């Protein structure tokens, strides 16, 4: 889980073009939206693309995104539970 969260922080910075941030600037439980990292609905699209590209996961519904994208930890938990098993 720790490695996955570290990977996610790096990928979020890259995907959202947050060049001035370092992975260590993002807390595991820091809210990603509004008062936390300041992300908005456009960025939610980017996170959906990130899940599809990097982890082959498609969200079942837009509503699901609100809980999945709450923090890096909730994203990592969702990925762990939903990532397709490789043979």
């Amino acid at each position, binding site marked *: 889980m720790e490695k996955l969260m570290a990977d996610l922080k790096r990928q979020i910075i890259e995907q959202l*073009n947050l060049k001035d941030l370092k992975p260590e600037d993002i807390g595991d439980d820091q809210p990603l939206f509004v008062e936390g990292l300041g992300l908005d609905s456009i960025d939610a699209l980017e996170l959906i693309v990130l899940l599809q590209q990097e982890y082959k996961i498609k969200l079942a519904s837009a509503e699901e995104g609100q809980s999945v994208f709450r923090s890096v930890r909730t994203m990592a938990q969702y990925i762990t539970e939903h990532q397709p098993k490789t043979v």
Partner: protein
Amino acid sequence: MQHITTYSTISGNAASKDGTVLFEEQSLSPQEFLLSLYKYLQVDYPKYYKMDNLCKLGFLATEILLQNRNVAEEYGKAGAGVVLSNANASLDADIAYFETVKNIPSPAQFVYTLPNIVIGEISIRHGLKGENAFFVSEDFDAAWLEFYVNDLFKRKTIDCCIAGWVDFLGGSYKAVLYLVENRSTERSLPWKTEHINKIYELANGKVNG
């Protein structure tokens, strides 16, 4: 009669207010300099990290301009306007976005591919809902800026205006912002082309050579 009651400049890796250098760091790239300035100003605004270079520049120049001021409270949210201009529109963000198109187009970068987005970011930060406009011209046009801002005041659509030049492309950038108000102070200057130009020229370094 409108007056320039305060002004800010960011260029040549130096940031100034009313002609006094607040922060300077020559050894950094423009992007690194802006990040250092953000930290120096102790601004806590996570959305800053998402912005493109043009928005970061305009955002920081406004932070300096409006230090110890709350124009939305002083003039009402609709009473403060923003009129900006530059030479390169949003070309810096356009190029960055174009790079992503080769793979998967980035919505987060696409939203910055208009120059007036910087006005939006400034307005959100300072709660401004007044008249606004963004003009693109090859060179800084002080006479046009004087005329346009004066016209807004004459029509009584605004009582205060953040006006000026915010330009960023690659390694070149320059921001010069004026706070224009319907009052004079001991140190204010009339909102006239000659004073607008004089302050613009004070900013060291030149965009477009």
